[in-house]
């Protein structure tokens, strides 16, 4: 069961993640008085891209390596996640830090690809991505660390239990911070700054096409779903029903609803500038720190 949990996690994310993009596109389209593409469109997009010729536009080995690294590390993240409330087979050789490490690695893979491409727009995108990682990853890390503080363990399953346990001031503060940061975690408007189509033409991904680009897209989809999962299974975890199947079902519906909300916010906001977003992130980081402080105090 513990070994199976790893594969169930992987399948769950791999199969569901593109659907969430479909949901976002559909909801956005409805708000914009458009029909929008069918919900399964992102699957078709991925299949189409995967079937294309792979071009190494930059002629650099790191350029090819980056999408593989991004995809592999985000798969590693979801493989580690606890399943059905208990830790899985990989838990004996991993903990909270492993997860944060892989998650950050996937971000750095995007940077690697952007810088290897040598494109000026990609490097502007890379510098924006870098600033975003520096400001946002600590917020995520602190969410998990608060869980560890409150549960007294660095094991993923227990730390998530710590994240989930409601009722204290630190929980509500961190939940508020996470909700506000969610839009930035999934890099949707107003925080889709590193990609900003009209400014820097998808920034880091500019030179990518075909299967390499598909891997980046897929990795991004899975990463987004991970953040939705963290809210549904982490923060709201203690309210999920006890039955394994039922809890899994409720959790999936919750994730879908979260992405509906993300789409609504995204469709009703213009994009911020990096300098405006950084001020916003700084406040989030400070609040997250305070929440951890509360956690340490046991509030």
């Amino acid at each position: 069961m513990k070994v199976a949990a790893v594969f169930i996690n992987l399948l769950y994310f791999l199969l569901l993640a593109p659907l969430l993009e479909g949901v976002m596109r559909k909801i956005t389209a409805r708000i914009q008085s458009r029909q929008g593409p069918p919900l399964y469109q992102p699957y078709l997009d991925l299949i189409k891209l995967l079937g294309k010729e792979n071009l190494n536009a930059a002629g650099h080995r790191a350029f090819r390596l980056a999408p593989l690294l991004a995809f592999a590390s985000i798969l590693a993240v979801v493989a580690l996640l606890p399943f059905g409330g208990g830790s899985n087979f990989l838990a004996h050789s991993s903990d909270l830090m492993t997860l944060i490490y892989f998650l950050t690695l996937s971000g750095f893979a995007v940077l690697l690809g952007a810088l290897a491409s040598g494109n000026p727009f990609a490097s502007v995108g890379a510098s924006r991505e870098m600033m975003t990682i520096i400001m946002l990853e600590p917020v995520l890390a602190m969410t998990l660390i608060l869980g560890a503080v409150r549960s007294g363990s660095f094991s993923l399953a227990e730390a998530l239990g710590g994240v989930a346990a409601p009722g204290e001031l630190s929980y509500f503060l961190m939940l508020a911070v996470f909700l506000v940061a969610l839009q930035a975690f999934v890099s949707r408007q107003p925080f889709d700054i590193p990609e900003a189509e009209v400014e820097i033409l998808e920034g880091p991904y500019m030179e990518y096409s075909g299967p390499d680009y598909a891997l980046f897209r897929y990795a991004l989809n899975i990463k987004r779903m991970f953040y939705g999962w963290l809210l549904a299974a982490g923060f709201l975890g203690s309210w999920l029903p006890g039955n394994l199947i039922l809890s899994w079902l409720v959790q999936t519906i919750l994730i879908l609803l979260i992405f509906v909300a993300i789409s609504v916010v995204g469709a009703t906001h213009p994009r911020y500038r990096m300098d405006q977003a950084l001020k916003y992130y700084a406040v989030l980081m400070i609040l997250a720190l305070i929440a951890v402080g509360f956690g340490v105090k046991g509030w």
Partner: protein
Amino acid sequence: MSRAEELSRRLREELGNLVLDLETGTPGRLFIDVSKEALGKVAASLKNQGARYQAAVAYDARKTGQGFGLIHTFAFDRDSLLVAVRTFAPEDDPEFESITPLIPGAGWSEREYIDLLGLKFKNHPEPRRLVLSDDWPEGIHPLRRDVPHDLMPPAAEEVAFRLEKAPAGTSIIPFGPFHASLHEPAHFSVYVDGEDIKGCEYRGFMTHRGIEKLAQTELTYNEVPFVAERICGICGSVHSVNYAQAVEAAAGLKIPRRAEFIRTVMLEIERLHSHLLWLGVAGHLIGFDTVFMQSWRIREKIMWLAEKITGNRKTYGMVIIGGVRRDIERQRASEIRVVLTEVEKEMLALEKAILKDKAIHKRTKGVGHLSKEAAVSWNLVGPVARARGLAIDVRKDHPYAAYDEVDFEVVTADSCDVWGTLVVRVKEVYEAIRIINQCLDKLGRLPEHEPLSLVLEGPVPSGRQGLSVVEAPRGEAVHYVLTGDDNRPERWRVRAPTYAHLQAVPDMLLNNKLADFPIIVGQIDPCISCTDRVLVIKLGQGRAELLQKQELERISRSRRKER
């Protein structure tokens, strides 16, 4: 004493016999001929009296032994007066005094004629190539009479525009010719330090179509309005009306009143269309696609309306010299009113959502700032100038068509930035609706079934000058026509508002963030096709493309021979 008379007297006093001729026949226009030496003095004198520089027109007058003619046009907006100062230089020494050091906005106009006519300008600060493509051979000046309109010199390889090097401490981000935020080909080489813009260089004129040359060599008076309309996909009517007005003014024609009202209605429908289009694009440029989709949804009703009236969603084809081609009957008028009521209602809802959105304030206030003084010195026009507190509007200042009879407000803002432009253009939507409704009321009272255009009696006399201005949605468009023989203009010059605005863009960009580049360039609503109207050839770059291009050229040339 009218302003024109006062001005004439003053210039005669200041310059004595350097003023060769003064023509005050047309109300609101003053055509002056001065000798070459006086050009700088006249320009300085006009500028000191508060004139706004519009454009330069130059033409090949060697046929009549006058060498090359150069006309600078100025506007006195408070006094409803347009002034055209003409001078000639001999064929063997086509050099004029540059007025760019005095009036920076004249820089492009003068550079244009260095390229197209081979003129020289003494003391021009930057006499570089502007209009011609990079591989155009030296010494061939396409607007000269002896150069055929279909001349196609062989494309040269390995030629590129020499852009300046980035200043120390900055790097270059290239915007264009193909970029998601530029919808037409233009190249901005933007110098950035991190994300801060420290300067920029512009290279445009990549898609000239030789329209002015074509009108002077191939077309006839009444064919030009349809070509003029195709200068631009958005303000087409502006150009066809403007050209027709210039010819009518030169020929001394007074068109039927009903036609003037119909022209006004079409111009305002076009303005509605353009403002809604721009609003959507502006939303898109700051990453707010919902604004884009919603305002284009409203715009769709206007397109539908235009199709109902003219048969076309855009490029109405309504204007001919002496009038219009289609009537707006009572039945149509009531249909227009219904659509306008809907548009107004939906626009109010959209306005509320946009102007109250805090995030939009954040992205537009203080962005692309250019002071009122700078706007005056760059001769900015239209919503871009009105957003800087300059209450200039051609419709009020130099009334044409039926604007003298309608009541509307000139909307201004004083924030001097993108926000101001946004507010001005949103509010102007309601003014346009008001104007159309008034025109429809008045049309209803005019007799129906009267001819909509004049029947021309005899040919248009040659050698007459006509100067016309129209307030395009983006700002003032200027058309100058010098009538000629063979039933076609001797010279036709188009100056779109973007021609004036683009020259000020580097100042607007300075010290802004790179992320604001799209909306800062977007605030002038650049129309590259309007600006680039004169060219002849397009340059292809890159090895892989080159073969293809030669192949294409071979095919097109053999086709030409077949014909």
